[in-house]
């Protein structure tokens, strides 16, 4: 039957396109992990094994960078800002758009949406947020300040790349 051939061929083509999309979103997940690791290493190198215990949430616009120092190591993570009662950050619609048609579009589209936002605006917002923390939060220890300053330095090339 000719219809069987035509339909099965078209379904195969559609599947290939969908698999390619899945691969791209997975690649974004891998890059986000790499990025997190890079910044975590920067923070770890700046931390000299002191006794500070601190969790710092840095506001990057629609994204957040969290630096956690539980006293024994330094952990860093990127996340999406939680939904407000009356307002949803724009990044949520971006996440849904990127993974439209997936079973969990907000989960699948999240890494690329974070990365894209980070490069466009997030890095610059994070630099501002770090400056603010260092300037205004008097109770931060020297060690935490040093970690934040190093993370800020590491963010600089990304901010510069976004401007050019």
């Amino acid at each position: 039957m000719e219809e069987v051939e035509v339909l099965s061929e078209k379904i195969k083509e559609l599947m290939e396109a969908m698999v390619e999309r899945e691969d791209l979103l997975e690649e974004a997940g891998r890059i986000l992990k790499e990025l997190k690791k890079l910044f975590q290493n920067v923070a770890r190198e700046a931390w000299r094994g002191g006794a500070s215990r601190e969790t710092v949430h840095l506001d990057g616009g629609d994204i957040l960078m969290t630096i956690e120092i539980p006293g024994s190591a330094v952990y860093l993570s990127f996340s999406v800002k939680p939904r407000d009662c009356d307002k949803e950050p724009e990044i949520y619609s971006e996440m849904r758009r990127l993974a439209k048609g997936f079973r969990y579009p907000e989960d699948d589209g999240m890494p690329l949406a974070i990365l894209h936002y980070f490069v466009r605006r997030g890095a610059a917002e994070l630099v501002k947020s770090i400056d603010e923390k260092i300037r205004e939060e008097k109770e931060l220890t020297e060690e935490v300040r040093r970690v934040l300053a190093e993370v800020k330095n590491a963010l600089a090339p990304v901010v510069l790349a976004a401007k050019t």
Partner: protein
Amino acid sequence: MSEDEIEKLLQPLEEVVEKVKDSVEVCVRAEYVLREFERALAHALCERLGDEGVRALGELSVETEKVRLTVAGHETRLTVTFSATPGMKKDAERLAARVGLYFRRTSYPPPRGIREDDFKNYDSPVIAPLILEHLVEGGAERLAEVLKNKAAEIEGENALLGAAIRTVEKAISPLVLASKL
């Protein structure tokens, strides 16, 4: 009432029953042909996609104005189902009334029947021949066209996603470089 009179009354009734029986037979045959078509399509797809492809498939659904094609992969098993969309409701209602078969609302979602929303499901034996008729009269071609357009749309989006990833990679490359120094 005499036997003759009863016989006279029964004769037209028998004729009606014969006609309804014929309609039922057509519907049963249409259902059979449709299943064969689904089976052939599933077989051809399994051959093209291979086990890995079937595993990765999940559920895929495309539709024309009257017919929906659903392809679902469960481990290495693949099922293909043609069902009616709400666009076929009036045709089915009309044909069912004409041939004396039922068109009824059901409490369960019928596999081939019409699902208007979560609570409005309709089923009728005339749906199978109507789906076949639609497929033969260009519906299959339109489904292929819908699939082609969808693939082209996703490919376009993939190009955008790829470009976004390259932009990100470029922007973070100084960082990656610095970490390697």
